[in-house]
């Protein structure tokens, strides 16, 4: 996992964005606090200095220099305790009163001064910051009033530091959280990507990892795994289908080829050519029919067929009647039983073909003098179609298998048929959300297809 990858993740970018937003809002908040506290204190100090200076200047104009000097001396007595600074100088800068020893060094800018002074004044425990304002009085005297603002500066520094640290912690924490989240996310993405890569490389059995936390990643992985399951099933089915098709088409195609080849290799009578061509035609028709059936199965399995509300008993009746002569020709007895109200939602053509395939099988496998029953019955929930014969039946273990494509229990394959008849029936049943059961008819086979009743739809 490269650092560059980590930084490129969307999570990291999101956490970076969140960090910036958070840092800006923290800065704005702390800025408000700063202005609200430090700024306010500064303003108060300035107001106090200005007020006192104004008051003293008035005193001077009222009481003259001596009065002012005595007031300043009086105020200077407890000035150190209050953090106040006073100084009165004459035109030659000689101090007349106040607790400051010298006129502060920095040249004044306007009427405000900032300077450092030993505090307590003269005593000198350390240098303190001070802020002062002066006024020029009549007679060349200058009066200065100031305050010790060391405490305020300490407070300001504290707030600035707090602000700085808070910002730093915010940034660092968001960076760490972003990196951790991105790494966790990237790990899962990488795991999914690895699994996908394996699947692309042909390992269809591979599944996406599920962390069992039931988070959105798990939900996505679970859905994708279900999809992969379905795809694998379909591909396997298709593979089996392709194998079976090539197997079952190869037979007739090979026969076809050898017949044509045999006919061409010798000079023969026209009637022999005719015979060979008619056989070839029969062979080709068989291949085409096989092909057609496969297409129909695929179609039914894909579910791309139109459905209508219809009476299954009518369809069964029609197909039964279509087969009646064939059944009688095989010296079998066909019993048709239908009930009214066997309404299903279905495709008439495919249903008819499924019934025809079942009757085909019954006719093919039931020995002479046997019985074939074609029954349609309806209950409030189900419509059941049953085709039962008195043939050899299908042994229980084989019943699942005969529904697969190209499976023929008659392994010698002497009787005609593609092995697709029941597969089509199964596909049609699935398409109609019907249940297909093969059971024992004692003796014989009983095929039952249970469709969901659709009488409510017909009303």
């Amino acid at each position, binding site marked *: 996992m490269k650092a560059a990858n980590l930084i490129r993740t969307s999570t990291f970018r999101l956490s970076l964005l969140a960090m910036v937003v958070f840092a800006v809002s923290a800065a704005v908040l702390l800025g408000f606090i700063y202005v609200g506290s430090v700024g306010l204190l500064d303003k108060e100090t300035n107001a106090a200095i200005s007020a006192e200076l104004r008051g003293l200047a008035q005193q001077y104009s009222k009481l003259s220099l001596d009065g002012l000097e005595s007031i300043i001396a009086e105020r200077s007595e407890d000035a150190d305790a209050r953090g106040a600074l006073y100084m009165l100088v004459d035109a030659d800068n000689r101090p007349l009163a106040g607790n400051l020893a010298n006129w502060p060094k920095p040249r004044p800018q306007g009427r405000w001064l900032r300077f450092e002074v030993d505090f307590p004044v003269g005593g000198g425990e350390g240098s303190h910051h001070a802020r002062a304002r002066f006024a020029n009085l009549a007679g060349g005297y200058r009066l200065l009033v100031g305050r010790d603002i060391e405490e305020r500066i300490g407070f300001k520094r504290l707030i600035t530091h707090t602000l700085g640290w808070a910002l730093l912690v915010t940034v660092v924490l968001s960076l760490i959280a972003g990196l951790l989240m991105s790494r966790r996310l990237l790990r899962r993405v990488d795991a999914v990507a690895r699994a996908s890569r394996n699947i692309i490389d042909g390992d269809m059995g591979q599944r996406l990892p599920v962390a069992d936390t039931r988070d959105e990643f798990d939900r996505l992985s679970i859905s994708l795994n279900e999809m992969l399951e379905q795809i694998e099933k379909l591909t396997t089915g298709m593979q089996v289908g392709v194998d079976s098709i090539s197997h079952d088409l190869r037979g007739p195609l090979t026969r076809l080829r050898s017949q044509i080849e045999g006919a061409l290799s010798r000079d023969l009578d026209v009637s022999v050519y005719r015979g060979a061509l*008619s056989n070839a*035609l029969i062979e080709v*028709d068989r291949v*085409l*029919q096989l092909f*057609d059936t496969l*297409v*129909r199965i695929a*179609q039914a399995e894909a579910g*791309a*067929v*139109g459905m209508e509300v219809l009476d299954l008993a009518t369809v069964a009746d*029609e*197909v039964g*009647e*279509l*087969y009646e*002569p*064939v059944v009688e*020709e095989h010296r079998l007895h066909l019993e048709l039983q239908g009930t009214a109200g066997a309404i299903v939602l279905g*495709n008439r*053509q*495919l249903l*008819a*073909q499924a019934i*025809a*395939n079942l009757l*085909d099988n019954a*006719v*093919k496998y039931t020995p002479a003098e046997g019985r074939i029953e074609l029954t349609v019955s309806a209950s409030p929930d189900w419509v059941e179609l049953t085709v039962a014969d008195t043939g050899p039946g299908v042994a229980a273990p084989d019943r699942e298998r005969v529904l697969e494509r190209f499976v023929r229990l008659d392994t010698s394959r002497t009787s*005609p*048929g*593609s092995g697709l*008849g029941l597969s089509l029936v199964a596909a049609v049943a699935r398409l109609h959300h019907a249940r297909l059961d093969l059971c024992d008819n004692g003796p014989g086979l009983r095929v039952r297809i249970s469709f969901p009743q659709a009488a409510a739809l017909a009303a």
Partner: protein
Amino acid sequence: MHILILEDDPSTAAYLAKAFREHGYTVDCAASGTDGLHLATGGSFDLLIVDRMLPGLDGLSVVKAVRERGLRMPILILSALAQVDERVRGLREGGDDYLTKPFAFSELLARAEGLLRRGRPEAEDAVLKVGDLELNRLTRTVRRAGRIIDLKSREFSLLEFLMRHAGQVVTRTMLLESVWDYHFDPQTNVIDVHISRIRQKVDKGFSRPLLHTVRGSGYSLREGR
């Protein structure tokens, strides 16, 4: 009889044109839907054979456009799409018959002839006659040489279809489609057995058979050989 074939595969088109010409038809071909529609509206054709999938304008759109221009000649749609619903769509858009590829030419010919004959007034006559066989559609009775032949309802429909197409070849799938309205190939010879029953009733005891089997294609009801 003038047939227009709309087929984009040149070898299929050439084969069909040759085969129809051998049967005495005049044939024009078009390889795209737009050309085909142009030809169909310009000329006077008795039958259109339209491939479902065509470059330019697809088969169904051609059929629709032809019908919208008020042309009423029969149209047979050829298609490699074997889907059950495709047939319905083809007929709904104005096609008269629908045949899935691959098909036997005999099947196509039989259907083309059926379509060309259709719409003629005698096909709707109350009484159909072939030789000494007579079928009355109103009284639903069949007589041969004056003698009443007893037929079941479905046998009557089969015979009626054969008589309406007398002299033509009728295929098994055509019978299954028109008499039962089912469009699949039954594995067993169900239609053959029905026909042999009718043959028992219609031809047995008469020196000249009317119901003939056409090898590899189907059946034909006609006088003489």
